[in-house]
């Protein structure tokens, strides 16, 4: 299953959409594998759009944190956009909003 679709890429950025309504324990591991396959280290930044996701559980949050750790080890970034209110509130609850760079849309992300 391809849950991640490339939206656009340039020299520094790989912009991808997550095609999931539920991001949970059933797809967290697969998500991590797919994202890491796309991460070719040529791009300095992966921008992941979650605007189709209604629900994220702790397993998927763990996969996001694990992916960020991996990307950072190559001096690259994982940026999130398109979080709905519940997901924004969940990030704030456990303070992952201070760990990830989060913007409203692809267009709001500052140029690299």
């Amino acid at each position, binding site marked *: 299953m391809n849950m991640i679709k490339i939206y656009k890429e340039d020299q520094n950025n790989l912009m991808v959409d997550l095609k999931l309504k539920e991001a949970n324990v059933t797809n967290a591991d697969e998500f991590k594998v797919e994202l890491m396959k796309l991460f070719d280290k040529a791009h300095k930044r992966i921008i992941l759009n979650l605007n189709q996701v209604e629900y994220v559980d702790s397993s998927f949050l763990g996969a996001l944190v694990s992916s960020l750790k991996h990307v950072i080890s190559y001096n690259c970034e994982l940026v999130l956009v398109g979080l709905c209110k519940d997901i924004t509130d969940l990030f704030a*609850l*456990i303070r992952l909003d201070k760990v990830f760079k989060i913007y409203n849309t692809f267009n709001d992300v500052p140029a690299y």
Partner: protein
Amino acid sequence: MPRSASSEFVFSTVANSSIISLKEILDFVNNNLPDNIAKVPVNFKVKVIVSELLNNAIKHAGDAETTFHIFIDDETIGIQKTDYGRRFNPNNLLSMPGTSPGTRIKISEDVIHKVYAIIENQSMIRFTCVEDTTVSFPDVLDIMEHFGLLIITKSADKFTYEYDYVTGLNKFSVILRLN
């Protein structure tokens, strides 16, 4: 006159049923919430708590079914999740010798949060969380990757786990105060 409502929901622990399970419980809560209580913040808390309890059942319980008992009155929402799966016993904390009531045992820790289990008695623990609010922008390498207990503990006003040694029943209980 005070009013109250309660209902029971039995779910398969097949993971892809979770969003449907959540909707059933949220519908029940919304239909029975006192009129003077704002729905949005209550919905958020119920949603994340039930999600994580279901997630726990899917990942760890090892039982085909899990039962949620929800009750609401004018002042509280109670959420209980029960199953006959594996006993919750991280770090063997319920089996440690010399753990008397009031003993606090660390379950997880990162640079921001420490989650503790406080022994209430031989079969019950209460979860609590200590947050370091002085850490503004933590390094992701110092952040844990397991958030389930943390999410429930931070959302709940009271969160406990109880094990029945005779029947093997596991019971997670959450209290949310409405006022």
